């Protein structure tokens, strides 16, 4: 899937025809930013300021308990995020090397598999994890949280670091060796310095996701593992202390902003590395290489496949035959749960036909795709040739990832009142989350459009439209598709938006899973697993699509 024209080296020197006339003028650049800024101002900063202005004040500090709670949860948040990041790298780094350096059968499937968890809703991941944990061994909830974070975020390391490794020019290593460097020195003096920005970028992003993790911690650990986000949830909704919740939110936002600034700085260095024009991946040759590939493939398959497979298996297994009647539990194959999905036994108003839930999910995901592409494209164009304005604005695009969903939900209510019952707010909330991913996917593609090729084409007499068709379009089409798929899967799995308000007329798949799990009974559990399987299949298919169409340099997030 390597493109022929991926020279990133002179991004900064490049000039785009279509921007040339206006690029220098601040005003035109501002125009590119207007849609996304308008969107973020209305649906992020405005609700956020509404809730914070009502609840945040410095008097919160006068109750000595509050700063103590803030300090403790901040420390614990850092602690668990640090350990989670370490563990994620312990698995992700070897995997990144594996995917970048070697070709083997089933590679794209395994690669897709590692990316699936990132897109799955927490309820499903937690259920999957607990299924597996029970089969294997008892680990403490804290360890389980760390493992689940690894499961979620290993794909970030694989993507970012893996891309950087695959872009390493093999000549560098060869010349270092010819000058007498051994393997250790090749890595220490040549490879590591080049990889450093990508390692840093991946670490920052993983750390940021672990830092704001919420569902995983609550579901697997419980409220005694009080990270900032968990503490915000408890203080905002359960123990009414909105002032403390606001204080914690501000702390979390400040740290997110710091991480975002650091991240955008480092990711820009990643993109200015030299890239080879061909894939460096090859079949493993030596015994050590074969051992490395085989061991890691088995390890990765077990780690990612077991939890994911447990859902479809549970959704097709009957295991409660006459539980109450002291008969032996019978394990058997059944499609009951899937059939039951189509029956509204109680004539309930809140019954969700699975096809409708899927249709709603797909519909919201579709709107999210359109919305985030429409907003993301202009911003990505601007970011492709960053000036001081872009460098300043860039980190703010990531900020929604660090805002507490609970506080945002309350902010939405204060800002929009009865309007938030409109179904349109669901894709808006999804777009807030999807936008950073979409922009990060489009930007490198837009930046990589080779100017020399465009010039050559027009010198040979091609019309501007023809130039666009033959040079720009092939690159843009793939990047757009993979950005769209990102937005699509983020929307499919996003559950946080229900912290706003849900209308029973428009339930999505994650909501219907939640509904099944809210009442006792084997049938409910089985149906939840069946719906989770449907969601997982949709997500896996989308990710396989990303993998197939992935633009070589896209996917840095």
């Amino acid at each position, binding site marked *: 899937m390597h493109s022929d024209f991926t020279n990133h080296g002179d991004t900064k020197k490049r000039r785009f025809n279509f921007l040339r006339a206006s690029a220098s003028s601040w005003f035109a650049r501002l125009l590119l930013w207007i849609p996304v800024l308008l969107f973020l101002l209305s649906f992020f900063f405005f609700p956020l300021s509404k809730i914070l202005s009502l609840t945040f004040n410095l008097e919160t500090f006068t109750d000595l308990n509050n700063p103590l709670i803030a300090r403790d949860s901040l420390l614990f948040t850092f602690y668990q995020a640090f350990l989670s990041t370490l563990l994620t790298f312990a698995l992700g780094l070897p995997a990144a090397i594996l995917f970048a350096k070697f070709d083997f059968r089933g590679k794209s499937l395994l690669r897709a598999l590692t990316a699936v968890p990132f897109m799955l809703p927490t309820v499903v991941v937690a259920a999957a994890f607990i299924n597996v944990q029970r089969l294997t061994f008892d680990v403490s909830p804290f360890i389980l949280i760390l493992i689940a974070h690894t499961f979620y975020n290993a794909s970030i390391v694989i993507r970012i670091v893996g891309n950087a490794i695959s872009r390493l020019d093999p000549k560098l290593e060869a010349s270092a060796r010819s000058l007498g460097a051994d393997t250790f020195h090749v890595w220490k003096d040549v490879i590591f310095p080049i990889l450093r920005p990508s390692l840093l970028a991946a670490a920052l992003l993983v750390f940021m996701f672990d830092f704001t993790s919420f569902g995983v911690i609550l579901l697997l650990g419980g409220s005694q593992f009080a990270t900032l986000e968990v503490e915000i949830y408890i203080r905002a909704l359960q123990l009414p202390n909105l002032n403390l919740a606001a204080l914690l939110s501000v702390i979390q936002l400040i740290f997110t902003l710091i991480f975002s600034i650091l991240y955008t700085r480092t990711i820009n260095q990643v993109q200015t590395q030299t890239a080879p024009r061909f894939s460096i991946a090859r079949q493993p040759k030596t015994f050590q290489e074969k051992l490395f590939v085989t061991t890691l493939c088995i390890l990765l398959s077990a780690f990612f496949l077991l939890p994911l497979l447990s859902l479809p298996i549970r959704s097709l297994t009957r295991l409660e035959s006459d*539980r109450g009647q002291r008969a032996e539990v019978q394990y058997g194959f059944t499609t009951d749960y899937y059939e039951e999905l189509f029956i509204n036994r109680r004539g309930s108003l809140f019954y969700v036909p699975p096809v409708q839930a899927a249709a709603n999910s797909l519909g919201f995901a579709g709107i999210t795709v359109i919305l985030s592409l429409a907003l993301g494209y202009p911003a990505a164009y601007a970011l492709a040739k960053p000036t001081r304005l872009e460098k300043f604005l860039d980190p703010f695009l990531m900020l929604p990832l660090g805002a507490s969903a609970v506080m945002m939900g309350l902010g939405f209510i204060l800002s929009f009142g009865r309007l938030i*019952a409109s179904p*349109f707010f669901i894709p808006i909330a999804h777009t807030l989350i999807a936008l950073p991913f979409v922009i990060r996917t489009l930007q490198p593609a837009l930046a990589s459009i080779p100017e020399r090729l465009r010039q050559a084409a027009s010198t040979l007499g091609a019309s501007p439209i023809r130039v666009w068709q033959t040079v720009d379009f092939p690159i843009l089409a793939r990047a757009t598709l993979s950005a769209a798929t990102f937005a699509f899967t983020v929307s499919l799995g996003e559950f946080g938006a229900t912290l706003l308000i849900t209308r029973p007329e428009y339930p999505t798949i994650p909501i219907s899973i939640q509904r099944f799990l809210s009442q006792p009974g084997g049938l409910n559990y089985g149906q939840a697993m069946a719906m989770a399987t449907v969601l997982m299949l949709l997500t896996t298919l989308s990710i396989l699509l990303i993998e197939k169409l992935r633009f070589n340099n896209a996917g840095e997030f």
Partner: protein
Amino acid sequence: MSKLPSAFRFLLLAFCLLLSACAPAGPATLTVMTHDSFAISEDVVIAFETANNVDVVFLQSGDTGSMLNKAILSKDAPLADVMFGVDNTFLSRALEADIFDAYQSPALSDVPAEFVLDSSFRALPVDYGDVCINYDKKYFEENNLAVPASFEDLVKPEYNGLLVVQSPATSSPGLAFMLATRAYFGDGFLDYWQSLKDNGVVVVDGWETAYYTNFSASSGQGPQPMVVSYASSPAAEVFFASESLTESPTASIVASGMCFRQIEFVGILKNGQNRAITEKFVDFMLSKQFQEDMPLNMFVYPVNQTAQLPDVFTQHAQVADQPASITYDEIAANRDAWIEAWADVMK
């Protein structure tokens, strides 16, 4: 650059869509704010809608705590006309925040006075349910273990690690169970929780995790044979069994004082619209038709004494003999302090 105008056009379109989606059209709309566990049969709602020429819209707003906070925050411009689902553990907060208008529904005549906690009729009782420990019958039979008959029994070594509860900070059954221990032990309830902790009680964040992940008799087949749930859960196990059962795999411990009775209320939100229809809807929620529809939808008991219970309830659900007695005023005054103290013990 060509992307820009189309993006603008799209935004414009988006906002138009947004506005048109909310513009009033057709018959009047009655908006009901509920928690996520609310459920009702379609034909019951349609009956009300046709009788009163109104569209009923339900807004599910998270768990009870989330819903209440949203209602309090939006007090001046309410999101809905009526709110259902505040229970007696949250009632005081709702009344203090003054979000309800009083309405003495004539339908209250069929409701026993013990359920009408707010004497000024701002919050009217709709249903109740007992939060009790549920146990895995098979586990206790196979292990020849007696079912614990009191709170004191639970800290005996033979029950070490066998009970899973929800955190009162994040779960309403969790809070209810903690309140039952507070009612029983008084200020000594924290010592009791220390002994429960020493005896390996497992604390999780919410009902779903406790029931489906930790409880051994649910389909999740977890490690603990005892879970804090509802006295109606055994009936739900039968009703939602994947094969028809004649007996529930679970039962509740309904010994005196070991259960907490949750009562759920409906209230007319201040500054709402359509007062006349809203009152009719409150009457409707207390009517026999609605009250008989509730049990199988939400697995709660009707407060209307004329309502008939479905068979699966009379056969498999239990009612606590003497639920813990603790007034909502007492809960109001101490709720947060108790939860904080509990959290300190369980750290």
